[in-house]
Each structure stands twice: as structure tokens, then as C-alpha cells.
């Protein structure tokens, strides 16, 4: 099997598996218990918290362990229940759906044709802005530090970051910040008026590019373990000290009263080990060199060998491991299944594969073209992906697309 769906999930690293097994075998107690087995478990969790904090340059106290990116995102949106939330048009469903459910008013910030938030206007009374650091489908990486700076400058009026007149994806934001005269705003108790908070979903970015909460200037940041070689079912939520917070899951006093439920020691240890290895190995450097080179080679080969290809990923400010394209006349799920039968795993934005009638909202927000969205195919590489694997992909892909295009009702020469 040639696995090219690392953006969906990565297999747990050997070191992660061993560390988790060790936790299970050591018969550790409940970290909330005062006895020795409990305290040993508590130490393990504390170590993992340090490792996660170090990965994103946060303090350990600012890290809350959750069941994953989805819960972390839901938790943040829940904090701003009834408030005014603005999210980008290309958020993961766990942000989009929970913002929809909890927001008093919800504003969607449009993206340009490369998937960048660039000409967004944030309403004056906004309490929370949520913009994902890097998009999971096309790989656009936002200039979040610039966006945060613009938003938080608090001067009001339109502010341009980069050159808004240039139609290339390497410059970014024109954002209208809230005006100061709006005194109705108070997020939750104990917050300062006129404070606008920023959340970012860094799930797809983490490990692929450097992520530093202080450099970014965000108040909340979420990610999950299984995108960096950790286990599924565990993730982290960074809440900047002093930012508003209330728990989503109520019950016991775990996580300092910020997230109830018996501590998932083994998974948290797994996340800690994955985070530690990511920091030590600086995996983003390998992604930026080796993986990016392979991905760019694949992109060039596909564009060269296959007719009627549309590139959905940006060419700059992009994640190094994602390539998203649409093959005109060939539907994404059909391409995906033909590849699967050839033992190659990829992903698609086709509605047929999602189990809904609507194709990928992300591709729709970028291209406004349902056929492009139905036909979108995502290849996502891992640290161990080889040139030989991509060569095998290229042995079958052109034929598959040609076959589908030749039986398609879509007239490609029109």
C-alpha cells in the first residue's frame, strides 16, 4: 500500500507506541489519586504537558489536554457562546459547525483564489476571530502573526498587510479592526472591554511548519496528536493565560477544573512523546526540504503528464506536504477508488466520498465551482514518503484519469 493521505492521519511512531505500552504495562493509577501509582501517572502527564508546551512555546499551565482537535475547537467556540464570532470560510467542520451552534452572530471571512484570508472585513463588535493556521485540504498557510497584529492593533479602520493590489498569494490581509467606541462588548466575566480574541486551529500545521504561540500572538490554539505521529483520540488546547475560559465538559476537577473526565494517561503520554520528537527533530525542517522537494516534483509531473489539471493548492505560503488538484471531467471519488484498487490511498473533496450531497466547502469557498470541488483530489505526503512511491503513483494515475475523462459526459475541448 502506498499511503498518500498523511493529512488525514499519520501512523503512531514506534517511540509513541512503546511509551504508551509502557504506561499500560506499568499499571499506573489514576493521576487524580494520592497514592503512589496515581502520583507516578501524574508525573507522566506533567512531563507530557511540558513537552507539548515546549513544542508551541507556551507555558505548561496554558495547555489543556482534550480528546482531540474537534473537542478543542468546540471548547473554544463554547467559551464564546452567544458572542460575535468571525471565522474564515475554509475552517474545518469542527470549527465551522461549533461556531454556528454557539455564536450569537457568525461572520464568515472570505478567502481568495489561493485560500488566503486577505480582504476580510471583521465586524466592529466581534469577540472572537478564528482562522486556521494552515488549511487541511489545500495547504494554504495564513500570515496569522500579521493578522493578529492587525486585529489587535485596535486602531480601527481598514488596515492592509502586504500589497492588496498584487494578485499573488504571497501577501495577505486587509482587515477592518473593531472601532473603539463600541462599549457593549464583554466576552465573558473578567474580560476587558474591546478585547478581540484570536483562535487558530493548528491541527494541520503542527510539525509541518514552526508553530510558536507567542510569535503568532494568538489567544487560543488547538491541535491533535495523530497528525504528528501520536495516537488518535487525544489533543491539546492552548489557552493564553488571562484569556476567557470555561469548560465544555463538566464533572471532576481534572485539568485544573478545565476539562472533566478521567485523565487519559497513556494517550497523553503518546502525545507528549510525539510532541517531544517533533521538537527535537525539528520535523518542519525535513518537511520544508525533503518532503517539499518530493511534493513539488509530483506536482510538476502531474501537471506535465495529465491534461486538464487544475491546481487547487497555492504555490507559495503553502504546507510542504499537501498537493490538491482537480482533474476536469473525472470525479474525485472515482479517481480515489481506482487508486485504491491499485493500492494507493489518497483523499477527495467530492461529495460522494464525504457522505453528503455537497462537495468540499473549502474548495467551494476558494473556487466557487462545484465541478472543481467534486473533482478535487488531495495527495498528502509523510516524512517517509519516497520518490519510488510517487513514481508508482505516476505509473497508474495518468491512465486512470484518461479513462475517466474518455467516458465522461464533460466535454474537455469545449
Amino acid at each position: 500500500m502506498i499511503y498518500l493521505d498523511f493529512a488525514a492521519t499519520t501512523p503512531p511512531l514506534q517511540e509513541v507506541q512503546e511509551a504508551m505500552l509502557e504506561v499500560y504495562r506499568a499499571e499506573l493509577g489514576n493521576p487524580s489519586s494520592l497514592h503512589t501509582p496515581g502520583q507516578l501517572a501524574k508525573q507522566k502527564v506533567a512531563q507530557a504537558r511540558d513537552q507539548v508546551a515546549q513544542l508551541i512555546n507556551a507555558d505548561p499551565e496554558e495547555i489543556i489536554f482534550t480528546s482531540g482537535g474537534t473537542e478543542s475547537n468546540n471548547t473554544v467556540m463554547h467559551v464564546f457562546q452567544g458572542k460575535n464570532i468571525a471565522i474564515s470560510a475554509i475552517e474545518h467542520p469542527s470549527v465551522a459547525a461549533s461556531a454556528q451552534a454557539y455564536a450569537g452572530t457568525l461572520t464568515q471571512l472570505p478567502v481568495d483564489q489561493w485560500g488566503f484570508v486577505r480582504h476580510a472585513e471583521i465586524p466592529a463588535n466581534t469577540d472572537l476571530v478564528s482562522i486556521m493556521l494552515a488549511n487541511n485540504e489545500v495547504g494554504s498557510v495564513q500570515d496569522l502573526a500579521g493578522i493578529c497584529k492587525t486585529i489587535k492593533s485596535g486602531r480601527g479602520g481598514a488596515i492592509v498587510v502586504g500589497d492588496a493590489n498584487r494578485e499573488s498569494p504571497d501577501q495577505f490581509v486587509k482587515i477592518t479592526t473593531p472601532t473603539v467606541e463600541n462599549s457593549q462588548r464583554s466576552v465573558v466575566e473578567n474580560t476587558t472591554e474591546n478585547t478581540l480574541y484570536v483562535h487558530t486551529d493548528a491541527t494541520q500545521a503542527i510539525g509541518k511548519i514552526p508553530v510558536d504561540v507567542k510569535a503568532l500572538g494568538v489567544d487560543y490554539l488547538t491541535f491533535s496528536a495523530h497528525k504528528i505521529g501520536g495516537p488518535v483520540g487525544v489533543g491539546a488546547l492552548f489557552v493564553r493565560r488571562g484569556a476567557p475560559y470555561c469548560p465544555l465538559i463538566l464533572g471532576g476537577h481534572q485539568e485544573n477544573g478545565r476539562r472533566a473526565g478521567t485523565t487519559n494517561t497513556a494517550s497523553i503520554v503518546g502525545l507528549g512523546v510525539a510532541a517531544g520528537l517533533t521538537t527535537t527533530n525539528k520535523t518542519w525542517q525535513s518537511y520544508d526540504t525533503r518532503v517539499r522537494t518530493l511534493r513539488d516534483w509530483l506536482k510538476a509531473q502531474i501537471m506535465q503528464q495529465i491534461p486538464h489539471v487544475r491546481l487547487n493548492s497555492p504555490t507559495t505560503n503553502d504546507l510542504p506536504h499537501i498537493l490538491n488538484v482537480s482533474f476536469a471531467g473525472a470525479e474525485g471519488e472515482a479517481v480515489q477508488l481506482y487508486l485504491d484498487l491499485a493500492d494507493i490511498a489518497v483523499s477527495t473533496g467530492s461529495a460522494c466520498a464525504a457522505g453528503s450531497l455537497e462537495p468540499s466547502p473549502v474548495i467551494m469557498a476558494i473556487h466557487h465551482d462545484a465541478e472543481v470541488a467534486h473533482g478535487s483530489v488531495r495527495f498528502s505526503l509523510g516524512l517517509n514518503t519516497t520518490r519510488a512511491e510517487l513514481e508508482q503513483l505516476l505509473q497508474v494515475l495518468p491512465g486512470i484519469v484518461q479513462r475517466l475523462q474518455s467516458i465522461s459526459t464533460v466535454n474537455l475541448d469545449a
Partner: protein
Amino acid sequence: MQDNPVCDNRNAENNSPNGWVYTETVKEHFLNPRNFLMGDESQYPYDGVGTVGNPICGDQMRMYLQIKDNRITDIKWKTYGCASAIASTSALSELAKGRTLDAAQEISAAEIADYLGGLPEHKFHCSVLGHEALRAAIQDYRQNFDKARNAL
């Protein structure tokens, strides 16, 4: 709570978590589709043609018929769509070939799905459209036939 779509669990019994698995017959038709028209339609002299669906919706089928004595003697098709759309159009072409026009018109989506050994619930309504294209092709033929007869 029922007003909140998030809280609606009334259709829970239909939410099969494994509902996206294709049968071997579907896979087989997807891999080796029967009777499809390769390339340009000008290569195939047909007596009736019908189209249904739209690439915007993710699926489009077109059926081409050769007809003699009110019977489908040959059939070709083109499809833009997912595996289920391709397989169901292929299955339909097998079902329709050799039938009289009246009998071919009776072919239903359920018959196509049965022929394939079943299709995932979600797929049924969006991808099994070929029979409508077939009916449109038959109607196209009959209209042309009537026109030709009236012209005589």
C-alpha cells in the same frame, strides 16, 4: 431542542456507520464498465440520446440507443460521476440491451441497485440516475420517429 438540527436524532436508525462499502459487483462494474462510449459520440450512430444530471451536482449520465423494431439492439453511455454512478450506468446498459422500448422504460433505480447487489443508502438517490437518461433517450427516439413519419 428539536429545533436545533444538531440535536436531531430522529433518523438515527438510518445512520449506518459502515454505509459506504461497495459490493463486489459494484466494484467489478466500476473496474470493467460494460458498453461505455469511448471518446467522441460522432463515432457511434445512434437513434436516440438522453442526458440526465449535471456535473455541478457531481453526476451526469448520457445514454445512446440503437433501435430496431421497437427493441434496443445496442446501447452506449457516458458518465461523469463517482464509482456508484459509473457502475450503475454500466449495470443499466446490461439490463436494457435487447429489451423492447416499453420494457426498457420500466427499469427502475431499485432494479439497477438489485442487479448490483445493493448500493449504500446515501448513494442511491444521487448516483442511480441512468434509467432517467434511458427514458429520455427512448422519448428522443420516439419524437424523432414521429417527426420522420409525419414528414412522409
